[in-house]
Structures are given as structure tokens and as C-alpha cells.
């Protein structure tokens, strides 16, 4: 924050810069506008000045008319001439006064010091001129005899002075406008020259008028003056033409110029041979009267007026052009200013929104990202195409990468923790066998610390006699094969051999190149020892079992011989001494015979049972339907006697099993079912179920069953019935009374097949024996 206070933000700097630019532009344009404004003011002044120059032209003209007419009148000898001219004098005097007072009034407003000085002087002279006018009036009233001979010339000179001074004012006044516009000043000068022509022509006119009025020949001095004035007027025409050309008045005023000059020349040419020729004289009267001449000559001024008006119109048009140009400049500058300011504002807004704001957003996001926050650099759609948008896209991509890297780091840390905490030795090595990593498990198992092991060759832990094995491992790795759970031996730092299980996997770099291998070494010493122990136990057990079997066999086999002797002896006694023996003794001997026989059966059963446990199963493909049919055949008498019947609801499968034993199994179950059955018709059903629930063991698959409708068994005896020599009920059928080993055999056969046997029964209704023959021996599925 303090940084921001000390150091202006780009936004602020930009604002300042654009503000300064706006100010600069405004100042420049404002200056230009001001200049044009001032110019516009000057131009309006020019217009006024042009008007004033017109008035001054008027004054000059009116004064010269008054002067000339009055001058001629002063010399007139006859009353008629005087009276004819007086009207003209009076009207021109009124016109001159009006023009003069208007022009002088306007002039004073300009406050040009030297002009005002001339003006002041002119006013004084004009006062004298006024006095002279009164004298002229008095003179006119008087009779010709009493007239002042000096007055006409005084009048002429005084009037000329007033006219010349008026022209001076004009000259001085025009000077002030040269700076505003040289052309307008030239226009004024042009009009001034017209005034000069008019003035000198006026003098000629006056002098000629005087000579005509006097009907006198011109004196040489007068002729000289006439020529001088004519020269001045002609020079005026030449200068006027030049000025007109320079100031751009031509060609617009050319026709008017030519007309005026033609008129002037034509009128004054009338008098050339009469007055301008050296020694000019006349006889009798002049061919033209003074008033006729003055009228003709004065009217030529009309053409000068027309010319002056044409020039004035041009001047006006020109000044209006200047005015329009200045106004146009002001408007254009104002528009430029507006445009520049708008551009400044727009630039600021644009840079602010499209550059600074996105950069700020990016910077904020970057700062957040540095703090580990999840951020987005995505900019609004409109910004995505520009440079900053691309930058944001790059940052966004970086950000996503960073997220991935962070996740990877987390995963790596997790994996590293697993490796660190593993009891197994986890080692990685390069392709040439240099150890690269060595976890604490390796330290513990192999005795080398990480510092000792890393950088060494893997042969460090391989016993000399197993070095060949490592070559094989490297070959397999070279073929990108993995070695799984290879049980081998490695060497501890202290030289001790350690039984291990080795898993080796190739390691690939990002480009998929095989760059090394990881080894997981598990200590299997304990398992090896346990295995050895187990082997010992198994051998001991096998020995013990064999001894037991041998004992049972030997015992039963050896017992049979004495039993047979006992039996035989009892029979011999009976047969030999039947007559001598009493009934009880006979009965006892019969009992002895029976018991010895029974004893023999028990011994035989025992022998068989011991064989069951000892002999290998003879596994073969067995069709169980055929087995049942065989049993039926062998038991046909037995079944017939007992009204027994075997049913198979659906065909039984063919399985792989020991056929003989399974036949025995089924026969035992069938005969049991028949024996312990009081029904008139004894039915045994043999079947196969895909699956059958067992109490406490979930579902059993591929279950066989043997179901009868016999007496049933109390639940409490379910385990009892499978114990050897255990009979639950004494059978009335004493001849066929068994030894009670049937179900024991059944259970044994089932167990030898890896199966299980259980039953469900309800006393008085019947019993179902379920069994399976699966386990390792069961290869082929039912193919019913």
C-alpha cells in the first residue's frame, strides 16, 4: 500500500499524461481559436474600415465638386452662370458636410493617435473652410465690380487643403490594416488612387470651368498646371491599374476600370486642343459653356464611382471570404479540439479497461497464486484476442500446469512417504547398475546407509555366486520385462546372506526411454524358516500317520488271525459236541461264533477305513447316472425285498472323481435310506442342485442330494451319525445289521474329494443328505 502511495500507479500516470495531452491540445487549439477570433474581430474591423474608406472617398468627391463648381462660379461674369451653378454648389456643400461628419465620427472610434492628430488639424482647417464658405456666399451676392479678386484662389487652395488632408487621413488609416490583410489595404490604396484621379481631374475641371466662365485664354502658368494635373491623373490611372492587378481586383473590375478611364479620357480630350496646346487661344466664345462643361466633367466621376463600387464589392467579397475562412477555422479547430479530447478520453478508457484493468487482474491473480490460492487468469471474451489476452491465456496455461505440478508433488510426497516407510528395501538404479535411491527399508535390510549405497554399483549387495543371476535380470529388463517375486539371496553389509523375494521393474523417463530399474527386495528369511518348520511338521505328521495306519493295518490284519481261530474253535466245539452240550452252552457257543464274526467284520471295516485314508484316489470321468444304475442292479434283490425304489428326477452330471469310492458313497446312503425306513414303499431320490443354502456357511454350489422317506433323525444326532461304529438304532434286520461305519466312510470319501456333507431331517418324514464333491478334484462342470 505504501508503495502505491509513494509511487503513482500506471493508471494515475496515464491519467496525468492524457490529462496533460488534453490540456496541451486544448491550449494549442484554444490559442488558434483565439487567434482566429481576434482575426475575425479584425476582419469585422476591416469591413468597417472599408466602409469608412468609402465614406472618405465620398467626402473627397463631394468636397472637390463643391470646390470646382464654386471656383468656376467665382469667376463667372454673368448672373445666369452664377445662378445656374449656385444650386450645384449648395447641394454638393450639403453632401460634403454630411459625408464629412459621418466619416469623421466613425474615424474617432478607431483611436489611432496619428489619425486623430490629422483629424484634429483637419477640423480646425474645416472651421476656417466654413468661414471661407460664408465669404464665398457674400461674394456671390455682391456685384461683380466689388468682388474680391483674391478670394477665388484662396477658396480653391483652402478647399484643396481640406481634400488633401482628408486623403492623408485615409492613407494613414489604411496603414493600420496592412497587418490584418495586405490585400484589403491594397484595395484601400486602389480606392485612394481613384480619389487622387478624381481630385486632379477635379482641379482640371475647375480650372477649365473658370477659363470657360471667364471666356479667357489660359495663361502659360495655367496651362502648365493643367498639364501637371492631367499627368497626375494619368499616372493615377497607371498606378491604379497596377494596384488592381496586385491586389487581385482584376479581372473582376477590369470592365469598370476601362469604362471609367475611357469616359475620363473622352471628356478631357474634348479640351485638349482648346486648353492644353501651347499657345492655345480662342476667338469669340468657347464652343462650350462653363456649366455644360462642369456638368459633363462632373459626370465622369460617376464612372469612377462605379469603378470604386466594383472594387468595394470585390473588397467586401474578399473580406467575407476572410471572415468565412476564420469562422471555418474556428469551427474546424473546435471540432479538432472536441475530437482530440474525445480521443484522449477514449484512449484513457480504452487503456484503462483493456490494458490496466486486465493487468491489474492478472497481477492480483498472480499474487493470489503466489499465496497458493487457486486462481483463474481468464479474461472477458473481448480481451482474448489482444496481447494481454494472449498473456492471460499463457498464464492460465501456466496456472493449470502449476496445479498439476502441485498435485504431482503431493502424489510424489505420498509415494515417497510410502517408499520411506516401507519395510521392503526399495532401490532404484541406472541402466549400468549405479544405485540412485536407497530407502530406509534398504538401510535396515542390507545394512548400508543411503549415503554409503547411492552412487555404488548394485553388485554391492549381490553375492559373488549370484552375479550371473544379475546378468540375467539385466537382460530381461533390456527386453522391458518385469521380474516378479524372484526368490533369491542378497548379501548384507556384514556379509550375511539374506533370503529375499525380488521384484524388478524397468523405469521409463517422460519420453518413454528405459533409463533404469526399481528393485523391491522383501526379506523372506522368516517365511523360509516357517516353511522349513512346516515341512518338518508335515513330515513328522506323515510319519506318525503312516505309523498309525501301519499299526491299524497290522493290528487289524494280525487280529483277524486269532479271531478266525476263535471262531473256528467255537464252531468246532459246537459241531463236535452238540449232543453233549446243554442248550445254554450251545447258545453261548453260538453267541461266541456270532461275536467273533462280528469282531472280524469290525476289524475288516477298520482295515478298510485305514485304507481309505491311505490310498490315492483313482480319478476318472464318471457318469453318475450310470453309477446309480449299477447300484440299482447290484441291490435289486435288496430293493425288491424291501419294496424300495430309486428315483432320479433329472439326469445327473458327469464329473471327474474316484468312481469306485463315489459308488460306495452312494450305495451306503441308499442302503441306509432303505434300512431306516418303515414305510411300505421306500423311495430314495437322488438329485443335483446348482446351489443350496447351508446353515452357517451361505450358499454351496453344485450340490448332490439323497432324499428318503424314512424315519428321520433327531437334530441332536446330526454329528453323531458320522462317527465310526456309531449306530443310532438297532435294526430289526439283524442279518444285515451293519457295523455303523457306513456314514463314516461316506464322510471320509466326501472329504477325500474335497467336499462337504450335511443333512436336513424331520423325524417321521425323512432325511436329505447333501454333499459336494468339488474342491481341487472337481475339473468338469455339470453337463446336464
Amino acid at each position, binding site marked *: 500500500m505504501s508503495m502505491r502511495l509513494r509511487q503513482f500507479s500506471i493508471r494515475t500516470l496515464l491519467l496525468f499524461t492524457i490529462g496533460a495531452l488534453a490540456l496541451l491540445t486544448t491550449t494549442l487549439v484554444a490559442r488558434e481559436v483565439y487567434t482566429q477570433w481576434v482575426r475575425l474581430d479584425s476582419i469585422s474591423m476591416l469591413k468597417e474600415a472599408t466602409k469608412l474608406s468609402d465614406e472618405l472617398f465620398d467626402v473627397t468627391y463631394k468636397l472637390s465638386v463643391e470646390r470646382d463648381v464654386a471656383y468656376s462660379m467665382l469667376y463667372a461674369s454673368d448672373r445666369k452662370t452664377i445662378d445656374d451653378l449656385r444650386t450645384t454648389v449648395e447641394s454638393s456643400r450639403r453632401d460634403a458636410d454630411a459625408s464629412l461628419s459621418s466619416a469623421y465620427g466613425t474615424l474617432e472610434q478607431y483611436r489611432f493617435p496619428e489619425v486623430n492628430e490629422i483629424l484634429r488639424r483637419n477640423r480646425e482647417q474645416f472651421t476656417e473652410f466654413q468661414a471661407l464658405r460664408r465669404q464665398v456666399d457674400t461674394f456671390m451676392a455682391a456685384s461683380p465690380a466689388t468682388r474680391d479678386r483674391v478670394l477665388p484662389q484662396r477658396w480653391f487652395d483652402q478647399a484643396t487643403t481640406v481634400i488633401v488632408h482628408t486623403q492623408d487621413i485615409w492613407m494613414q488609416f489604411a496603414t493600420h490594416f496592412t497587418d490584418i490583410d495586405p490585400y484589403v489595404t491594397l484595395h484601400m490604396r486602389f480606392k485612394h488612387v481613384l480619389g487622387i484621379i478624381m481630385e486632379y481631374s477635379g482641379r482640371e475641371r475647375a480650372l477649365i470651368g473658370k477659363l470657360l466662365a471667364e471666356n479667357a485664354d489660359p495663361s502659360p502658368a495655367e496651362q502648365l498646371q493643367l498639364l501637371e494635373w492631367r499627368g497626375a491623373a494619368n499616372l493615377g490611372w497607371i498606378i491604379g491599374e497596377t494596384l488592381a492587378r496586385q491586389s487581385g481586383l482584376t479581372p473582376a473590375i477590369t*470592365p*469598370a476600370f*476601362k*469604362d471609367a*478611364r*475611357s*469616359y475620363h*479620357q*473622352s*471628356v478631357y*480630350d*474634348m*479640351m*485638349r*486642343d*482648346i486648353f492644353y*496646346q501651347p499657345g*492655345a*487661344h*480662342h*476667338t*469669340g*466664345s*468657347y*464652343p*462650350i*459653356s462653363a456649366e*455644360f462643361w462642369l*456638368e*459633363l466633367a462632373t*459626370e465622369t466621376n*460617376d464612372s469612377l464611382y462605379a469603378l470604386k463600387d466594383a472594387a468595394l464589392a470585390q473588397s467586401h467579397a474578399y473580406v467575407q471570404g476572410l471572415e468565412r475562412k476564420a469562422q471555418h477555422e474556428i469551427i474546424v479547430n473546435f471540432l479538432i479540439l472536441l475530437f482530440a479530447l474525445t480521443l484522449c478520453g477514449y484512449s484513457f478508457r480504452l487503456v484503462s479497461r483493456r490494458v490496466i484493468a486486465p493487468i491489474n487482474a492478472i497481477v492480483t491473480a498472480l499474487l493470489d497464486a503466489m499465496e497458493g490460492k487457486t486462481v483463474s487468469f481468464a479474461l472477458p471474451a473481448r480481451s482474448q484476442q489482444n496481447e494481454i489476452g494472449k498473456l492471460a491465456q499463457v498464464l492460465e496455461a501456466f496456472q493449470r500446469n502449476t496445479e498439476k505440478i502441485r498435485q504431482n508433488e503431493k502424489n510424489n510426497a505420498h509415494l515417497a512417504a510410502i517408499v520411506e516407510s516401507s519395510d521392503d528395501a526399495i532401490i532404484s538404479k541406472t541402466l549400468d547398475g549405479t544405485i540412485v535411491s536407497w530407502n530406509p527399508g534398504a538401510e535396515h535390510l542390507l545394512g548400508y546407509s543411503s549415503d554409503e549405497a547411492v552412487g555404488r554399483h548394485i553388485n554391492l549387495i549381490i553375492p559373488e555366486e549370484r552375479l550371473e543371476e544379475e546378468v540375467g535380470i539385466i537382460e530381461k529388463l533390456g527386453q522391458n520385462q518385469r521380474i516378479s517375486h524372484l526368490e533369491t539371496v542378497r548379501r548384507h553389509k556384514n556379509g550375511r546372506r539374506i533370503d529375499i523375494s525380488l521384484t524388478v521393474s524397468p523405469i521409463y523417463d517422460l519420453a518413454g526411454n528405459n533409463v533404469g530399474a526399481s528393485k523391491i527386495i522383501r526379506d523372506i528369511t522368516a517365511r523360509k524358516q516357517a516353511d522349513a518348520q512346516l515341512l518338518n511338521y508335515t513330515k513328522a505328521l506323515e510319519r506318525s500317520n503312516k505309523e498309525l495306519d501301519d499299526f491299524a493295518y497290522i493290528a487289524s490284519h494280525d487280529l483277524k488271525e486269532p479271531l478266525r481261530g476263535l471262531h473256528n474253535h467255537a464252531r468246532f466245539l459246537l459241531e463236535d459236541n452238540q449232543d453233549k452240550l446243554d442248550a445254554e452252552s450251545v447258545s453261548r457257543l453260538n453267541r461266541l461264533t456270532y461275536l467273533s464274526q462280528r469282531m472280524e467284520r469290525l476289524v475288516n471295516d477298520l482295515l478298510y477305513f485305514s485304507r481309505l485314508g491311505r490310498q490315492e484316489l483313482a480319478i476318472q470321468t464318471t457318469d453318475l447316472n450310470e453309477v446309480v444304475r449299477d447300484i440299482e442292479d447290484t441291490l435289486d434283490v435288496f430293493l425288491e425285498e424291501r419294496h424300495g425304489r430309486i428315483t432320479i428326477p433329472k439326469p445327473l452330471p458327469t464329473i471327474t472323481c474316484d468312481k469306485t469310492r463315489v459308488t460306495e458313497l452312494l450305495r451306503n446312503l441308499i442302503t441306509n435310506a432303505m434300512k431306516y425306513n418303515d414305510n411300505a414303499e421306500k423311495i430314495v431320490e437322488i438329485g443335483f442342485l446348482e446351489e443350496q443354502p447351508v446353515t452357517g456357511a451361505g450358499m454351496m454350489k453344485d450340490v448332490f442330494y439323497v432324499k428318503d422317506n424314512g424315519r428321520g433323525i433327531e437334530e441332536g444326532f446330526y454329528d453323531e451319525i458320522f462317527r465310526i461304529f456309531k449306530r443310532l438304532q438297532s435294526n430289526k434286520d439283524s442279518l444285515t445289521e451293519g457295523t455303523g461305519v457306513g456314514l463314516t466312510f461316506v464322510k471320509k470319501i466326501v472329504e477325500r474329494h474335497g467336499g462337504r456333507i450335511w443333512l436336513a431331517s424331520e423325524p417321521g418324514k425323512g432325511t436329505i443328505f447333501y454333499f459336494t464333491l468339488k474342491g481341487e478334484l472337481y475339473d468338469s462342470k455339470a453337463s446336464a
Partner: protein
Amino acid sequence: MAPQVAGAGTLELQEAEVKAGLLYNFLKYVEPPQPLPSITVCVFGNDPFGGYLQPMAGRSVNQKEIALRIVHAVNDTQDCALVFVAAEEKDRWPQLRKFLAGKPVITVSDFKGFSALGGMIEFGQENDHIHVALNMDAVDAVHLRVEDRLLKLVTIVHPGLPEGGR
């Protein structure tokens, strides 16, 4: 033709000089009903101005250049703006007048009775000075307009129109 200045002081020449100048004034202040394409000043007969008319050629009046022509045939006056009839051609004037009848051509002459014979402007004498008589009937007949400035200087006459004037 160079001005004949030998007798500069003679009244005739002085008159010729003045009359030549006055012709310009007539051109300036007599306006034709329709603007003329060009201004031609014609002298019918021998030039009595003794060269005083010559400077007028090339000058302009009412923004048109002036040309001079000496004509002897009546038909040649067809496109003249002004015809000065020499006094010696007085006899042919009726013929010329008939030819010009209806045409807005200013006719000027200095023989006595010109205006009475249908001429428009007649130079005469009064109190030893040049006097100008203007036949307003003739002028009006062809719709020429005479400005007041000229009217102030001249004496207006109304001789009526001669036979066949229109």
C-alpha cells in the same frame, strides 16, 4: 488619320473636338432596348471630325469596346450603334433614315434641321456655344432610353415623326 492641329485655335476644330467628346456621352447615356453585341460608331460620309474621333476607337463604354467606321453606303450602317451623318450627306439623310427606321441606332448630325427631319440628336449653336437638340419622338420611336444626365444637357424637341418614319 492624324488630328489636324494646324488651326487649333479655330472655332470649327474646337467644335469638332468637343462634338467628338460629346458622341461618347451619347453612347454612354442612350440605352438601347436590347443590349448590343458591340458598339460601332459610324460616320456616314466624309469624316468631319478631323481625326478627333480616332482616340475613341478601342475605348469602352458600358463595358463594351468601341469601334469606328466611315461608311458611305446606306446599307453599311446596318450594325452601327451610332451614326453621325456628315453635313454634306444631308441629301442622303432621308434615304438613310428610311433604312434605319425602326432600328435602335442613335443618329447624330450637325446640319440644321436634322432633328426636324427625323434625326435624333442635332448639334446646333446657341449663345455662341454648342447646343444639343434631342428629338424625343425619334428616340422613343425605336425605344431608346435617354438617361436624365444627358437630358439635363440638351434641349428636347418634339418635331413629330416624318412620313415613313416608322
